[in-house]
C-alpha cells in the first residue's frame, strides 16, 4: 500500500473515531432526554418521593442536592483557595512542599467509594451523626478539594507579575497584595473551576450513599443533621431497591433532570469562560 493511500485511510479512520465519540455522546444525551423529558411534569418536580406506591416525585431530592452541593462548596472553596494561595505564593521548593503536592495528587486519585467509606466511618459512626447532610457535604468537600486547590493555584500563577509588583511597590504587604490585587484578578478562572467542581458534586453518588443516606426527612427542613438523599443517589436507589412499580419512570425522569442540570452547569462554565476571555482581551 502506498504511503499516500495509508495516509488517507489513517486520517479517515481517526476522523471516523472522533465522529464515533460525538455519536456516543449524542446517543447518551438523546436517549436520556427522550425517555425522561416526558416524565418531567410540574407534579413530578414538586411532589415528594413515595416509598409505597407509584406517583412519587423528586422535590426533596432536588432540595437535598442543592443543599449538599452548596454546603460542600462552602467548605471546600475557602480551604482549597487557601491551599492554592499557599502553593502559589508562599511554598518554597523543598520536602514540605513536595509532600503537600503529593498529598494533593494522592487525594485526587482516591476512588470516590473510598471517600464514601471514610465519610461513613468518620461522620456516621465515630462522630455519631448518623446519615446527615453535613457528613455528606463534608465528605463531598474532601473529594473536590484537590480540584479546587489545583484551579486556585493555576489561577493565581496566571496573574501577571507586574500587577503584584505594582502593589508591592506601593508598600502593600504581601497579604494585602494577595487580597486586593491578586485574588480579584483570578475571579473569572476561579468561578469556572468552582462551577466545574459543583457540577461534579451534583452528579456524585458513591460518596453520598453511606454518608448522606438514601432517605429524606418527611418535612422540608434546613437541619444539617437530617439525612438527605440527592438526585444521583435517588436514581440509583429506586433501581437498586426496585420496590416501586414506576421505578423505571422515576429513574428516567431523574436522569433527564440530572442531564439538564449538567447542561446548565456546562453552559454556565462556557459563559464564564467567554466572559473571562473578553475581559482579558479588553485588558490586553
Amino acid at each position, binding site marked *: 500500500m502506498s504511503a499516500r493511500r495509508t495516509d488517507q485511510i489513517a486520517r479517515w479512520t481517526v476522523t471516523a473515531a472522533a465522529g464515533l465519540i460525538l455519536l456516543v455522546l449524542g446517543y447518551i444525551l438523546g436517549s436520556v432526554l427522550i425517555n425522561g423529558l416526558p416524565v418531567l411534569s410540574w407534579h413530578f418536580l414538586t411532589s415528594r418521593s413515595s416509598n409505597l406506591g407509584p406517583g412519587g416525585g423528586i422535590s426533596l431530592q432536588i432540595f437535598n442536592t442543592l443543599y449538599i452541593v452548596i454546603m460542600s462548596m462552602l467548605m471546600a472553596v475557602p480551604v482549597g483557595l487557601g491551599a492554592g494561595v499557599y502553593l502559589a505564593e508562599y511554598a518554597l521548593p523543598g520536602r514540605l512542599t513536595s509532600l503537600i503536592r503529593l498529598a494533593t495528587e494522592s487525594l485526587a486519585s482516591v*476512588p470516590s467509594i473510598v471517600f464514601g467509606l471514610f465519610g461513613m466511618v468518620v461522620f456516621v459512626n465515630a462522630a455519631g451523626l448518623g446519615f446527615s447532610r453535613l457528613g455528606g457535604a463534608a465528605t463531598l468537600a474532601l473529594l473536590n478539594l484537590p480540584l479546587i486547590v489545583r484551579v486556585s493555584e493555576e489561577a493565581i500563577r496566571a496573574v501577571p507579575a507586574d500587577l503584584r509588583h505594582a502593589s508591592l511597590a506601593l508598600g502593600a504587604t504581601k497579604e494585602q497584595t494577595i487580597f486586593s490585587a491578586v485574588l480579584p484578578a483570578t475571579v473569572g478562572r476561579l468561578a469556572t473551576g468552582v462551577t466545574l467542581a459543583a457540577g461534579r458534586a451534583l452528579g456524585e453518588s*458513591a460518596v453520598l450513599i453511606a454518608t448522606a443516606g438514601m432517605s429524606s426527612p418527611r418535612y422540608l427542613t434546613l437541619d444539617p443533621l437530617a439525612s438527605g438523599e440527592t438526585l444521583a443517589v435517588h436514581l440509583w436507589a429506586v433501581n437498586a431497591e426496585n420496590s416501586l412499580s414506576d421505578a423505571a419512570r422515576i429513574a428516567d425522569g431523574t436522569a433527564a433532570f440530572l442531564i439538564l442540570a449538567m447542561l446548565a452547569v456546562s453552559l454556565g462554565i462556557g459563559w464564564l469562560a467567554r466572559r473571562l476571555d473578553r475581559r482579558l482581551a479588553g485588558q490586553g
Partner: protein
Amino acid sequence: MSRVSTGRTAVATPAAVRTRIRGRRRDAGAIWRGLFFASAIFLVISIAAIMVMIGRPAIALFAQVRPWAFLFGRVWAPEHGLYGVLPFFAGSLAATGMALLIGGPLGLAGAIYLAKLATPRAQRVMRPAIQLLAGIPSVVYGWVGLTALVPFIRRHSGHVTGFGLLAAGIVLGVMVLPTFISLAEDALRAVPQDIEHGSLALGTTRWQTIAHVIIPAAWPGIAAAGILGLARAIGETMAVQMVLGNSPVIPTGLIVPASTLTSEIVLEMGSTPQGSPANNALFAMGLLLLLVSLGLIVAVRATRREATAGVREAH
C-alpha cells in the same frame, strides 16, 4: 471635601498621613499566612486520615483472616467466615482492562484528531462535547448502560441477562475518554514543532509524521494519560455496579454476571454492622483500591519525569 476647602476644620496634612501609614501594624498578615499554611497542611492531614481510617478496620480484619486468604481466596461467603476477594479483584482488573482496550484506541484517535487533524471549527464542536462526556454523572452512565446497552447485548448474544464485563468495559471505556483524550492531546501538542517540520521536509506524509515521529515522542505523556484513565476506571463504582450483574465469582466470560471491588463495597456497606468481619473486609477492599490508586499515581509521576527528561534531552 468641602471641609477641606474651607480650611477651618483640622484635616490630615500629608505629613500626618505619612505618620499614620508608616506606623500601621501589619499583624493581620501573619494570621492569614497561618491560615493559608493550615489549609495546605489540611490536605496532608486528609490523605493521612483516610489511610488511617480505612486501614484500621482492614488491620482488624487481618487479625482474624490471613492476608493471603483475603487477597487470593476464591470464595466470598462472609456467613461462612470466608473473605476471599479474588473474584472482586479479578473483576476490577478485567473491567479496567476492557475499558482500556475500548477507550484506549478510541481515545488516542480522538486525541490525534484534536491535536493534529481537526480544523478550528471541528475543535469548537469536539472540545465541548468531550467536556459534556466528562460531566455526565456516573449513575446516568449506569442507567443508560442498564436500559440500553445490557438489553442490546442480551438480544445479540443470546445470553440470559446481558450483564457482565463486556457491558462494564464499554461503559468504562466511554467514561475514561475525557481524561485520556485531554491528557493525550496535551502530550501530542507538547512535541516540538521543529521535529514535525523536520519530518515533513523529508517528504513524509502527514500520517507518517504522526505515526513515526509525533506519537513516539509523545509516548511517555500518552502512557501517563493511560495510567490516569486506568485509575479512573478502577475506582469507578456506580456505573459498573449497575451493569455488572453483581455475582461474587471469578468471571469466566465477558457476558456473565461479575463483581468488582467497588461494586461489592457499595452493595454491602449499608448492610453490614460496623466492626463485624464482613464490614472490616469492605474496608480492606477499600484499602486495596486505595493502594492501587496511589501506586498508579506514583507510576504517573515516574512517567511524567521521564517525559520531561526526554524533552529536555532533545533540547
